[in-house]
């Protein structure tokens, strides 16, 4: 589904974040991108979202070279990206309004898009009915992130990109939303790419974990984690061993 070919990108020409970097992500896979601060994991996500562009090389999704945000990709950010002046319900239907605003032009809205009002469905599915008329400032961080997820899923994406979406939440809410994300991804057959700096989060969510380093990334270092998302995997020895391994690798990279 996602093909990254010879990607070069960076903010400093002398030490780019990526140089000749290649990666392939299959449809329906769940990936976690892990690495220390400044390693380029958020930049990579923004490149996949079509919000940043490679200095050289190519990123293709479904065989189409990425030149702008793709209508069937959803992006969820750490600070939720909700409109403070809109209620929870209005925020969830925002993407639908944007699509109606342009119509099915193939650029902003998929060509085969048929308008449908599924905001209420996602409002209920994410347990937000009671706060539908509240503004983002009036609800909890967990509810804000649920609103952001509902807004994205209302657009029926096939690719979900998440940038440290749970880092500002307490442990219980975080685990709850991590599980919900996995359930929804499986339900909707989404390809999920989640950026995180937390080893435990990467190990719990990513069936494949891409570890980036603090220097220029030339080669994709991928850790297989097929049991991620299974019930009780977080309590297993395999999970703890993987966390230790990732910890060691990250320490090695930052020293």
């Amino acid at each position, binding site marked *: 589904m996602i093909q990254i070919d010879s990607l070069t990108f960076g903010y400093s020409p002398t030490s780019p974040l990526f140089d000749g970097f290649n990666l392939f992500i299959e449809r329906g896979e769940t990936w976690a991108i892990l690495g220390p601060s400044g390693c380029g994991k958020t930049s990579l996500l923004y490149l996949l*979202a079509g919000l940043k562009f490679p200095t050289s090389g190519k990123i293709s999704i479904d065989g189409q070279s990425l030149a702008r945000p793709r209508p069937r990709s959803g992006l969820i950010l750490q600070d939720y990206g909700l409109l403070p002046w809109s209620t929870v319900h209005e925020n969830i239907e925002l993407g639908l309004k944007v699509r109606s*605003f342009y119509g099915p032009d193939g650029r902003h809205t998929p060509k085969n898009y048929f308008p449908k009002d599924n905001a209420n469905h996602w409002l209920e599915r994410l347990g937000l009915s009671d706060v539908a008329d509240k503004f983002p400032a009036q609800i909890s961080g967990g509810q804000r992130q649920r609103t952001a997820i509902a807004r994205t899923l209302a657009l029926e994406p096939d690719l979900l990109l998440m940038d440290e979406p749970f880092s500002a939440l307490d442990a219980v809410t975080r685990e709850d939303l991590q599980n919900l994300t996995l359930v929804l991804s499986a339900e909707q057959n989404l390809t999920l790419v989640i950026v995180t700096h937390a080893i435990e989060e990467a190990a719990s969510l990513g069936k494949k974990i891409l570890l980036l380093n603090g220097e220029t990334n030339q080669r994709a270092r991928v850790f297989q984690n097929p049991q991620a998302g299974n019930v009780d995997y977080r309590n297993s020895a395999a999970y703890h061993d993987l966390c230790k391994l990732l910890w060691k690798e990250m320490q090695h990279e930052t020293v």
Partner: protein
Amino acid sequence: MKRCDLLSAALGLVIVWQAAAMIVNRPILPTPLEVFIVFFQELRKDLLIHFAASLLRVTAGMALSVLMAAPAGLAIGGSKAMNRLLSPIIYLLYPIPKVVFVPVVLLFLGIGDVAKITIIFLILFFQIVVLVRDQAAGIPSQLIQSLQSIGAGRRALFRFVYLPASLPAILTALRQSIGTAVAVLYITELFATKYGLGYYIYYNGSTLFDYPAMYAGVIAMSLLGLGLHYGVDWLEHRWCKWKFAT
């Protein structure tokens, strides 16, 4: 602004005014009671017509300013290239006291209401442009990117982000401008008109030396400003409900 606070402030001002009138003890500063009596007498005559003429001019000037300045501020604040190109021009023109353009405006637009409204517009335009531009430029980039990721292009960003985000700034600019607008209104109504509070105050004070009537006009002008403030507050409660949500 709470009503009881407003009443307390008004009462305080009346007490200070009464004390000053007693100390000065000259016709040029009549007591509040004398002025209030004349105020209500004048209301039954033509003070209301003067009030309405002024209200029309100042609201027309303010509305025109918002209609022209808000889109300009949004366009400049929403685009780095426009900001680089146009901000220096705004900085050069903003500090110029626009009252100096009164003769030019009169020359080109005549001495009617259009010229008066244009002068108010010229003064308010820059204040609103600068505030709206700053608000639009200060919108977090993550919010913009989040909207871009769900398909919003430039037009949708203006409709769904820049415009609603700038509404509070537009209303703040209006609130800040009311004092200036009313003060400018007085100047514009000093010439070529027989209606308006500026004319009424000047005519009664400087031609007829009817000081109680002059102060009645001053009270009407103060009430005009107060009414405009309340109008903006009302709009803010209606359009920016999220600011008051608890």
